[in-house]
């Protein structure tokens, strides 16, 4: 037990003092890493553990970010409270999509397409709702006040995003160790067989979807108050759904460390291509995502983390 707690405490201590020692562009990089790892962790519950690939998580993200922002702008409600209103709405949406999809037995490609269609409908509707700012988007005025979820400097954002990631990872860890986690993996591996063994597959898929949607929506609130600008064509786009999905898949979906490792690798790669090739080649970093996706599917179909872990285990086994 000590052997596992020791390194954990060390990593925790490093993460706490780290932001005070690094320049602000590195702070940005780490905030982005934590934040996308958080979203990846949320996606991981449904896509990784339960094996229900969603390519429409931007919808929950959008619901969460817009709800908290609109409640704050028009009612003066603190985003710390508003974010839970967004999460409730996202859960309702997920249950709507999930009930339709799972009830009618949509699997694989058909389920993916249903999630895409749902997110696209949300995007089109958001573009035509005046209260959300439509095409111009929604600007959030910067008035630093922790109660308004607005902070001076990067360091508070660093700790908020780190806290989000830690909380989501803890939730996913708890779920994965619970009966529900075992059921979800059973559903992923063989849905018909687990149904035959008495697993209420519909119920557990719906639960995973609800939890995943709620966490994604909370992440949307963080984004709204980190970027101070929301536009349906970015927040609710299919590209954004890909952004959410790609990190856990590259890192290793269905594992706790997968989304975190994936997010770290992708941020590093993004930063590298930005500094190497400057801004003149817009699109290069996304093209490299594409290459990465192809490479992962062809050579590391289980993701980087499981492959690495298996390699380390073999290595230490050979040493003994």
């Amino acid at each position: 037990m000590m052997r596992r707690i020791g390194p954990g405490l060390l990593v925790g201590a490093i993460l706490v003092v780290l932001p005070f020692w690094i320049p602000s562009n590195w702070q940005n990089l780490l905030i982005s890493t934590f934040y996308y790892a958080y979203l990846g962790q949320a996606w991981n519950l449904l896509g990784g553990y339960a094996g229900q690939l969603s390519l429409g998580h931007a919808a929950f993200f959008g619901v969460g970010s817009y709800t908290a922002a609109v409640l704050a702008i028009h009612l003066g409600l603190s985003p710390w409270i508003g974010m839970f209103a967004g999460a409730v709405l996202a859960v309702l949406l997920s249950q709507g999509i999930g009930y339709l999809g799972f009830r009618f037995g949509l699997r694989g490609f058909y389920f993916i397409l249903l999630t895409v269609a749902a997110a696209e409908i949300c995007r089109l509707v958001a573009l035509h709702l005046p209260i959300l700012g439509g095409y111009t988007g929604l600007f959030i005025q910067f008035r630093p006040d922790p109660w308004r979820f607005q902070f001076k400097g990067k360091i508070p954002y660093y700790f908020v995003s780190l806290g989000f990631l830690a909380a989501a990872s803890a939730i996913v860890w708890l779920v994965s160790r619970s009966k529900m986690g075992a059921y979800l993996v059973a559903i992923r591996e063989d849905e018909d067989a687990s149904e035959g063994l008495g697993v209420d597959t519909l119920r557990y898929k719906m639960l995973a979807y609800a939890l995943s949607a709620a966490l994604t929506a909370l992440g949307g609130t963080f984004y709204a108050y980190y970027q101070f600008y929301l536009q349906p064509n970015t927040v609710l786009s299919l590209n954004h759904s890909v952004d959410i999905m790609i990190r856990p898949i590259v890192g290793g979906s269905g594992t706790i460390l997968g989304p975190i490792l994936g997010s770290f690798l992708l941020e590093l790669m993004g930063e590298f291509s930005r500094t190497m090739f400057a801004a003149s080649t817009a699109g290069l970093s996304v093209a490299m995502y594409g290459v990465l996706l192809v490479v992962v599917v062809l050579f590391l179909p289980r993701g980087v983390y499981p492959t690495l872990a298996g390699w380390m285990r073999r290595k230490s086994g050979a040493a003994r």
Partner: protein
Amino acid sequence: MTLYLQAIVNGLLLGGVYSLMALGLSLIFGVMRVINFAHGDMMVWGMYLSFWLFTTLGVDPYLSILVTATAVFVLGAGVQRGLVTRILDAPHEMQILLMLGVALILENTALMAFGPDPRRVNTSYALSTFWLGPIVFDLPRTLTFGVALALALALYLFLQRTDLGRMIRAAADNRTGALLVGTDILKVFTLAFGIGAGCVGAAGSLMTPFLPFTPSTGLALTLASFNVVIIGGMGSLLGAFVGGLLVGVSESLGAVLLVPSLKEIVTFVLLVFILLFRPQGLLGGSR
């Protein structure tokens, strides 16, 4: 009344190209059971090629179809040979992720090569129209419809009447059976993916005279093709054809009945209903 009739005619004219796009997607899915997430991006490369041929050499887009269809055929066949063939037996999700990767590469290389500004091919006849009774026909759209229809018919005849076409259909019906009677399955797959891609490349050229496009148009076109084949029926060529016309008309009517920028929502709602109540599509067989 004339307004709606006009909308239906416009929708049908646009639907012809949708049919051609969807035929390509349906052929690829029918033969390999792989969903080409890069379909729209292959189409956009066809569009840029037409645009480039028009601006540098003055080749009319209806002529450059020959070049673009061939080029995108080669692109599709290359993707099949290099990538898809390695994951034919992998889970669906893996295939989708691979094709999504290809889509991101194609879209963003187009962005790097041509920039984000909208392009269009300004032909001399771009704004020509003619009247049939109370209905206006836009000349480029009508031409595009005619050519798309001819290409779809040619594809149908190729699949029905030629030996190669029969080989492709046999492989689609029963891969093992086709292998047993000595079909060169690798060749058939490469050919089918190439033809499917060629269709969408040609469809791209056909759209350039009236559709301004950017690299990110590809995603919208991929989604449009998915909508058409799901509505018409996955793997069914007739379904893809009918679905294309139906989606064209529903978008066109949606633009008249709702706001033009909301036109896709009609298709998405139609798609959701089809997914829920008839996931095999209007004309598809059993799943």
